């Protein structure tokens, strides 16, 4: 049984993993870069190992250093969190060779799902619906034009090694095909070192809906229902919820079965996510599999009542799944808001800096997963995610209102955050009605970006507070001023000496 786990990550996810380790009596080992000596995951862990300078490609992304820290600490297992090396087949493989348990799937599962064309082929073979398109790479420009015409416009040209929106081009008109193809290939080459591209039908108003799955080493695979992840900004999820407001129980059951089939097709082990693209008529297509824990996993934990990290560790320990499919149900509603150190008023530029003051929301239905503290400086080297607010309510309506209440009480000064932007989303009619797709933010951009008008005396109150603070500070530094005066006096010391009581 695993007694010590090295968490090859930082920030909120490292702490989240360590919390579950602590609950089941597992010693946790942190790794940290130069910039992270004072980071909370180092403080929270039982042990901590330095693994290099601040840029992640000199620390968190260096397999050698992670393996070395694991050996030195005597950790039997490595949990990769999300991001960094979490979907790196080489790490999974290397762990195997070193006799360290990788808390995640096999290298083969990671690679198969990591290459989009291979994944598409595998899914088609497993009977999982995929977006109409090619299953082979586009070999010639002539073939490309033929294929696009076959599928029918509009289409997406996508990099097989792709991710994060890179090497992707939307084609709406026939005369755009060649230009888009060349651009996608060149971008794919420079981003991933591989210019393989393929073509998919473009879904007009897509929803991103994903299914959480768990699979043990004995072929038992279950799904933990869906998460609706359509609130995105530049292909980055901003808000997630479960259940999806557009889901029906019939479609849920179907998609769940396909999600399980998709995982089984790659002999998946551990926790993973099958992402689907869903159109307004609830037609759904396999999009990709994330072979790791997701940022948004807590909403599933809240509604299904299962600690996913504990299940990951159980599975890694070679134990059978603790739950059967028919024992699981969705209880109430959960929404996650991701709070980023970004300035919504300045094109969401990252806003690293020192946390001056923080008030965390508390109370009924509030889960908060974060890692910053007062006086902590958010480093410039990593993802600007500060924390995640996970709110539960009996109904979707209650959950939205509770989220508003929690965001209202959540205060961070010293840096810019997306809190007010998230509050705006909670007040957007399309979101409240649950009628939204991945175009939500662009469709509602004006509403979301309109500054709240000053209410009542707020502006004058702000003025008065600044005024009083400034005055108080002046008073505090007065002694300094008088000591400056003393220096002046000192200069004329000889002259005034007779007047002073020395």
């Amino acid at each position, binding site marked *: 049984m695993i007694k010590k786990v090295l968490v090859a990550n930082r920030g909120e996810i490292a702490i989240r993993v360590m919390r579950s380790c602590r609950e089941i009596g597992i010693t946790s080992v942190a790794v940290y870069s130069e910039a992270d000596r004072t980071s909370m995951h180092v403080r929270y862990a039982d042990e901590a190992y330095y693994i290099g300078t601040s840029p992640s490609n000199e620390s968190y992304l260096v397999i050698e250093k992670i393996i070395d820290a694991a050996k030195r600490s005597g950790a039997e297992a490595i949990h990769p969190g999300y991001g960094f090396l979490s979907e790196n087949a080489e790490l999974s493989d290397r762990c195997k060779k070193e006799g360290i348990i990788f808390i995640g799937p096999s290298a083969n599962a990671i690679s198969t799902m990591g290459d989009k064309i291979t994944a598409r082929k595998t899914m088609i073979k497993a009977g999982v619906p995929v977006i109409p398109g090619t299953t082979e790479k586009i070999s010639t420009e002539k073939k490309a034009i033929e294929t696009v015409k076959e599928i029918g416009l509009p289409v997406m040209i996508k990099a097989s090694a792709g991710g994060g929106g890179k090497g992707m081009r939307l084609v709406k008109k026939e005369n755009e095909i060649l230009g888009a193809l060349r651009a996608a290939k060149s971008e794919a080459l420079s981003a991933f070192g591989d210019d393989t591209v393929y073509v998919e039908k473009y879904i007009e108003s897509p929803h991103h809906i994903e299914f959480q799955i768990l699979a043990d080493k004995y072929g038992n695979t279950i799904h933990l229902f869906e998460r609706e992840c359509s609130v995105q900004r530049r292909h980055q999820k901003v808000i997630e919820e479960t259940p999806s407001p557009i889901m029906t129980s019939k479609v849920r059951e179907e998609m769940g079965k396909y999600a399980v089939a998709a995982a089984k097709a790659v002999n998946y082990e551990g926790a993973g996510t099958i992402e689907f693209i869903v159109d307004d008529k609830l037609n759904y297509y396999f999009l990709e599999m994330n072979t790791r824990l997701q940022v948004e996993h807590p909403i599933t934990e809240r509604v299904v009542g299962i600690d996913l990290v504990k299940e990951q560790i159980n599975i890694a320990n070679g134990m059978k799944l603790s739950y059967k499919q028919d024992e699981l149900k969705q209880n109430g509603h959960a929404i996650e808001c991701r709070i980023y150190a970004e300035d919504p008023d300045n094109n969401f530029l990252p806003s690293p800096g020192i946390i001056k003051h923080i008030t965390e929301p508390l109370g009924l239905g509030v889960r908060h997963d974060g890692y910053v503290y007062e006086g902590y400086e958010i480093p410039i080297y*990593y993802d*600007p995610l500060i924390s995640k607010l996970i709110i539960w309510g009996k109904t979707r309506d209650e959950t939205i209102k509770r989220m508003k209440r929690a965001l209202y009480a959540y205060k961070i000064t010293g840096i810019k955050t997306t809190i007010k932007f998230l509050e705006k989303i909670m007040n957007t009619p399309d979101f409240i009605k649950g009628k939204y797709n991945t175009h939500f933010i662009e469709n509602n951009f004006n509403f979301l970006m309109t500054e709240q008008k000053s*209410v009542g005396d707020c502006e004058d109150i702000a003025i008065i507070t600044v*005024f009083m*603070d400034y005055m108080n500070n002046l008073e505090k530094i007065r002694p300094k001023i008088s000591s400056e005066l003393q220096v002046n006096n000192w200069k004329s010391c000889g002259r005034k000496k007779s007047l002073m009581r020395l």
Partner: protein
Amino acid sequence: MALEININNRKANVELLNKDNNKIKVSVDGKIYDIDLVMVENGVYSILYKNKSYNVELTQNKSGKKYIVNTLYNSYDVEIIDAESKYLKSRQKEHIDEEDTISSPMPGKVVKILVKTGDKVKAGDTVIIISAMKMESEYKVKKDRLIKNILVKEGDKIDGNQTLIVIE
């Protein structure tokens, strides 16, 4: 005690009329406020005005004269205008036109400098690339320019609003 305060392009005259512990009487542009104001945490004030409860959070810049103020729903940039500020402002205008420098609004790291002192660059040319938190930003010149001075080198950590390159 009176001061001039800048907020949202408004210049307000503020005067403290009376102070009895946390009970203060203040005039803002002639309007009188009776307010119960107390600093409850570092930079956080609790304010009661006509029995309404306000929480106001201040972040002060280094000079101590510029504040970011968060109230319930609004965030304001507020500036204290005293004799010193007025002097500095007038001086700044004389010497440094904001258009004559390139700076990044956020702290980060210099990834690449594409010019050297004395270079003549064209409108739209990228002169420097800054990275912060997984994102790289290119900084371009808006007009044809001459690179007068480069104040940083590749790999340098930089502060927000630090002058990086002086142009002419």
